[in-house]
């Protein structure tokens, strides 16, 4: 994932104000020792995670440079049935890029006549497993253990959403999703 963000963004500004207010509250209420204790504990976590973050950034950039989007698109278009859902899930997990590239690719699948279940599985897999986001953002914040077990649980869900979507579309949208 390329993090194409301005040096200043409002989300970070709001979070910063909130965090500073919380830090000041801790200092005034609990004193210096508690303030320093929280700081040292979290700085330790942060330093621990820095090398993984650096690796995550490099993986995000290099996979975007090396995996062509067209290849991922061909992968999904080629299969149907349950295999199609599994392939779409795999493609969503390795799909490089952010929301500005992923949704148009899924839209293109549908325009090219791909199965609705596969398109849903692809988008769901990207949101839950897209490794770039998981590595670059989730790992430093949530820690290795949390991300590992969340990712172990997640691969079933794109398949479930795909199957459910296929079934609902057949029942409620007999003329297709574009009508």
């Amino acid at each position, binding site marked *: 994932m390329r993090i194409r963000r301005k040096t200043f963004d*409002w989300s970070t500004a709001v979070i910063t104000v909130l965090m500073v207010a919380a830090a000041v509250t801790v200092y005034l209420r609990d004193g210096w020792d508690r303030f320093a204790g929280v700081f040292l504990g979290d700085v330790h976590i942060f330093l621990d995670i820095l090398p993984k*973050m650096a690796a995550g950034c*490099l993986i995000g*950039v*290099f996979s975007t*440079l090396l995996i062509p989007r067209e290849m991922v698109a061909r992968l999904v278009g080629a299969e149907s049935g349950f295999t199609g859902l599994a392939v779409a899930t795999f493609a969503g997990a390795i799909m490089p890029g952010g929301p500005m590239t992923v949704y148009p690719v899924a839209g293109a699948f549908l325009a090219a006549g791909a199965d609705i279940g596969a398109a849903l599985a692809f988008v769901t897999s990207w949101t839950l497993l897209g490794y770039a986001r998981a590595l670059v953002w989730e790992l430093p914040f949530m820690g290795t253990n949390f991300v590992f077990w969340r990712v172990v*649980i997640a691969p079933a*869900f794109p398949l479930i959403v795909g199957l459910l*979507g296929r079934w609902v579309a057949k029942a409620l949208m007999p003329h297709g999703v574009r009508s």
Partner: protein
Amino acid sequence: MMALAIGALLWGIVAVLVATAAVRSASLVETGLREGALDFLRLTPRVAIGVVGSGYVAAVLPPEVLGGLLGPSSGLLGTAIATVAGAFTPGGPVVGFSIAVAALKSGAAAPQVIAYTTAWALFAIQRVASYEVVAMPAKVVWLRVVCSIPVPFLAAFGAMLIGKP
């Protein structure tokens, strides 16, 4: 131990990717390293603010409130609260993950926090409104959102079932 193994695995992947790029051209390696370094520099202050600051937010929040709402015994209601909160969290990953880690530090249970981050990933209003609706037929977006509603609950249930993280 696992953290160390995953760190090694990540750098192993980096090595394979860089080697693959090197086979194609030296300038590809240079571009990748430069952009990767820039991303890292842009990311570092945000993660520093989020990770260090969330400790203070957790210290300020009364543990009995979050522990009651989202704690280990909050069950289905706690999962539902986490899911709704995740779907309506505005802003980017800094906001979502800062809230998640602060909740985790101040008494929320892991399955509920997994429901929160899963719901945020699936539904984050801002991303759906500004990217998804623009690029896909509205019917498909509705279908995806409706079919995804059970997922945060299943994710929390899965985490409870295996007893991790």
